[in-house]
């Protein structure tokens, strides 16, 4: 659906996007992740034909943004970062305006406006001016304008920023809904958002693409080890003996005692990434008669990866596993 080929964008002497290439499949939900100023918005502005790349090319649906911007824009819905809607228009009028400017047939336009009102839950604010809306409603109107012409490609720049948790949940539900049928690209610097909504993540830092993959894939690729937390209850239990015994379990590389907490003797173990040692640990504890109270496998989160990739590579190498 989308093919970005060696795209570079330079303006005012700043290299905003530096030689990025990636592809997006039809129906995929792609998350752009990166710190502020990493080049996410610039990339999106090029994809939406707001501005052309300095070099490289972007092909959307077989057409280049350089030559066929108008055709691409016809089939694209976009919601920019700060939801810049026309404040002086009432919501209903605004939706009709967008329908008209998109050249929808009048009957189809009425039908779509009705559907958008329902999908985005705008019944209560139809006749209010856009400027009077709360942040959450404003965002819903923004989504409605991006979807009104039923585009194949939807691009949302920071769709949940500035919303309260309830509003975020609502917007995410909507994104899930559209994402099932459409190709959707969203940017964010909120990590749980990507894990909650995206099939695939691209991490951008300082204009360069630093990672590309499924959220869970990225997690295991970047970490050679998984962490296991284990806790035993009670007295009459020898910490040193337990540590030694655990080292012999298959796949366990290191054992570290974390002391006692709330009556539990806690350990943190590192295990090789392809092996799940929990069953063996449980059997071992059962054989020895140690009262197992806690056993938990921690997969590394996107947050870890994100920090490793964006806070400076040297630091990540220094503290990361020596695999």
């Amino acid at each position, binding site marked *: 659906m989308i093919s970005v080929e060696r795209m570079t964008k330079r*303006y*005012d002497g700043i290299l905003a996007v530096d030689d990025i290439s990636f592809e997006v499949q039809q129906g995929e939900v792609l998350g752009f992740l990166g710190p502020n100023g990493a080049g996410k918005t610039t990339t999106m*502005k090029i994809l*939406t*034909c*707001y*501005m*052309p790349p300095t070099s490289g090319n972007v092909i959307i649906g077989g057409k280049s943004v*350089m*030559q066929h*911007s*108008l055709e691409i*824009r*016809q089939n*694209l819905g*976009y919601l*920019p*970062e*700060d939801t*810049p*809607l*026309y*404040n*002086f*228009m009432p919501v209903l009028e605004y939706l009709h*305006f*967008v329908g*008209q*400017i*998109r*050249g929808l047939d009048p009957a189809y336009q009425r039908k779509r406006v009705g559907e958008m009102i329902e999908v985005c839950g705008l019944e209560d604010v139809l006749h209010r001016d856009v400027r009077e809306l709360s942040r959450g409603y404003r965002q819903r109107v923004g989504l409605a*304008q991006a979807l009104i012409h039923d585009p194949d490609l939807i691009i949302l720049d920071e769709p949940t920023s500035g919303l309260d948790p309830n509003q975020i949940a609502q917007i995410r539900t909507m994104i899930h809904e559209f994402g099932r049928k459409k190709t959707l690209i969203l940017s964010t610097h909120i990590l749980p958002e990507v894990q909650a909504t995206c099939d695939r993540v691209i991490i951008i830092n300082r204009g360069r693409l630093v990672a590309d993959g499924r959220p869970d894939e990225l997690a295991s690729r970047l970490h050679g080890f998984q962490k296991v937390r284990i806790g035993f209850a009670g007295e009459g239990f020898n910490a040193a003996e337990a540590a030694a015994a655990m080292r012999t379990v298959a796949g366990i590389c290191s054992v570290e005692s974390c002391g006692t907490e709330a009556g539990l003797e806690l350990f943190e173990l590192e295990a090789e990434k392809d092996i799940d040692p929990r069953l063996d640990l449980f059997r071992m504890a059962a054989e020895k008669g140690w009262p197992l109270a806690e056993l938990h496998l921690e997969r590394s989160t996107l947050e870890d990866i994100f920090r490793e990739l964006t806070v400076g590579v040297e630091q990540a190498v220094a503290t990361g596993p020596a695999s």
Partner: protein
Amino acid sequence: MSNQTVTSIVSGNIWALYRKELKAYFNSSIAYVVMTVFLLMAGWFFTLDIFLVGQATLRSFFEVSRLIFVFFIPAVTMRLLAEEMASGSLELLVTYPVTDVEIVLSKWLAAMTLLTITLAFTFVYLFTVIILGNPDEGAVFGGYLGLLLMGGAGCALGLFTSSLTRNQVVAFVLAFTVLFALFMLDNLLMFMPASIGALVEYLSFGYHLDNLSRGVIDSRDLLYFSSLTVLGLALASDRLADRRE
């Protein structure tokens, strides 16, 4: 983007944009304020003619309207693109399937509509003159045509200056400077060498407006104003295509 097909320069979308611009004018106080100020000032000079000079004529109304237009037009055009850039709504607008030319043209048409409505209100003066005296029809027609043509050129140039900045005040000052220069040029002729005098005269608003207000519709005057209009619109749409941020 610069690669637009010629066939799509004017489409149905332009009317949606045009209506939006008109609504923006009449939903805010801009339209009412500028119209009121224009009509008050023009009306003041018109009544002065009748009661002080004792002449039922539109001549000084037309002359003073030119000067008022030098302020009026920048006030009408300053927000057109500067506001959209400042609020970020331009970013959304240009990702709709509309061309830069359509955007510029619809904004220009909206400004011209506001200007035409304002001029229509001055028909009150025209009717007064018809009742009280016997105005020269050619001069009246030429006078109104001159103001409309100057308005067209001024709105196009104002639209261009509005594309240069996000700040509406700066857009106003830039447009005012350009229009004031064109307005003043023929008053400076005596300070200029004869060799460039003719050129300077041709470039000034006054020279062409004087021609028109005599009731002479000459293609050279029409060409002057339409060239300025096309130039302003072309520069504005070029600026729009040249966006980087």
